[in-house]
């Protein structure tokens, strides 16, 4: 929470407690973006035996943070966070985030959650919402809204990544790969990496975009034809 405190002292920024409350609300599983219905290909990966246990899932999630879709999301979120006063670069990062979404389900996952996030965030009125009225990918929507309300970039990225990881562990529980206790253990072990990734992303530019997780991406493509499925991606 040190990062929230430090950033809160700047003029125009939310108080540390306000920032904490809003991030908790916006990135809570109860916020109506339908996060629970997406697995980002993890359902497919588990069904084809890629992560076979909690250890393998730890490696999988670590790879997503360091070299995968979560890293790209973090960089895109940070860029949107910087662009809240500049409609053109904000539109550019929104277009880039949409074009980067690999397959149909990944595209749907990020675009539908982004639109739902913007709609629900209208309970906290701000002009930035009208700049994104065409909709935006999920990390762009979160970055822009957090930035507009004076919430620090690193805190916003960290909260976004934590929510995504919590959702992934929840997918793994529902797919029967791990239990609740293991899931919490994974989140505890990933904590330092989340903080480190958030720090790097909040200090990055779009030049930092880059993924290596091709098998995770192929899992999101293959999920389209998975015969029996709990998730939309």
């Amino acid at each position, binding site marked *: 929470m040190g990062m929230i405190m430090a950033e809160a002292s700047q003029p125009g920024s939310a108080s540390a407690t306000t920032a904490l409350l809003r991030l908790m609300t916006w990135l809570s599983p109860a916020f109506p973006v339908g996060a629970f219905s997406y697995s980002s290909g993890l359902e497919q990966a588990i069904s084809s035996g*890629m992560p076979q246990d909690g250890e393998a899932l730890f490696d999988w999630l670590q790879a997503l943070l360091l070299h995968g879709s979560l890293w790209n999301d973090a960089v895109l979120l940070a860029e949107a966070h910087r662009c809240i006063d500049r409609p053109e670069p904000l539109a550019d990062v929104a277009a880039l985030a949409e*074009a980067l979404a*690999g397959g149909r*389900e990944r595209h749907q996952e990020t675009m539908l959650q982004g639109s739902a996030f913007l709609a629900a965030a209208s309970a906290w009125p701000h002009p930035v919402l009208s700049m994104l009225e065409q909709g935006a990918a999920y990390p762009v929507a979160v970055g822009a809204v957090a930035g507009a309300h004076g919430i620090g970039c690193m805190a916003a990225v960290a909260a976004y990544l934590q929510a995504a990881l919590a959702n992934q562990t929840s997918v793994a529980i529902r797919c029967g790969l791990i239990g609740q206790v293991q899931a919490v253990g994974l989140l505890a072990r990933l904590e330092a990496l989340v903080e480190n990734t958030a720090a790097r992303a909040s200090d990055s530019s779009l030049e930092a975009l880059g993924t290596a997780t091709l*098998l995770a991406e192929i899992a999101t*493509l293959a999920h389209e034809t998975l015969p029996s499925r709990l998730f939309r991606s």
Partner: protein
Amino acid sequence: MADALAAVQPEPILAADVTPRAQGFSPPGGRAQRAWGSGRLSTKPGQGRTRLDTFYQEGCAKLRLPEMFDGTMEAVLINSSGGLTGGDRMEWRFSAGPQTALTLTTQACERIYKASAGVAEIDTRLTVGAGARLDWLPQETILFDRAALRRSLEVELADDATFLAVEAVLLGRKAMGETVLSGSFRDRWRIRRAGRLLHADHLALEGEIAALASRSAVLGGGVAFASLVFCAGDCAHHLAPLRRLLAGTQGGVSHVTVGGMEKLVIRLIAKDGFSLRKTLVPVISHLRLGASLPKVWNL
């Protein structure tokens, strides 16, 4: 093969706007002169055929135009320096004029050798005019241990243009017992249609590549991978046949609509270069809609 390709080699046309080599690429500090090449070509329609409009080659970039009998044009890209290392730079610019069909391929696999300093750069820009089709089908890029490559592919499509792109990468040559332990590979794609972004991609394999490639979310130990994008109106009907062609492979295909614009995207991983080609050739063939593959792609 080389003689046949050279048969219709046109004279270079020197473009006035080209930065001279001395100005553009003289390495500082008296290090060895690095390789540099620039090749450009554009096509125009004429009597129902694709004709050469402009042609330019400089440095180690060469272009060969094999004779075609179907009214389309094929250009074979050659890097006469025999491979790239840190500090080398290749620039390719191609433009398919309205109602023309241009296929681009390479004479050989591009080899990226160990970089003692700097990064090799390959910078490609493609433009596809109204009613035109361009196929970007270079052969595999081979990364050797401690190679450093930064590649960029920028594509501008007219509203109704058709575009197929394939980029395949091999981490060393398995059959030769070569492995890539570390290195840096960054590949950046941008495809715009009528000025709007349709596709973007950033691949980044950096650092301890062997350890990275072995991770289950990355390449699962595979050493060959490919990305393929097909941009055309009304291309969803290719999805089912492509899924059949990819069945049983470590690959996937999807049809995505971005702001009303369509694309098919494919990612593929294989245990070696031969297996990768065995899957890629029928896939490319299918998306060529009956047009033959460049000869260099024959298995």
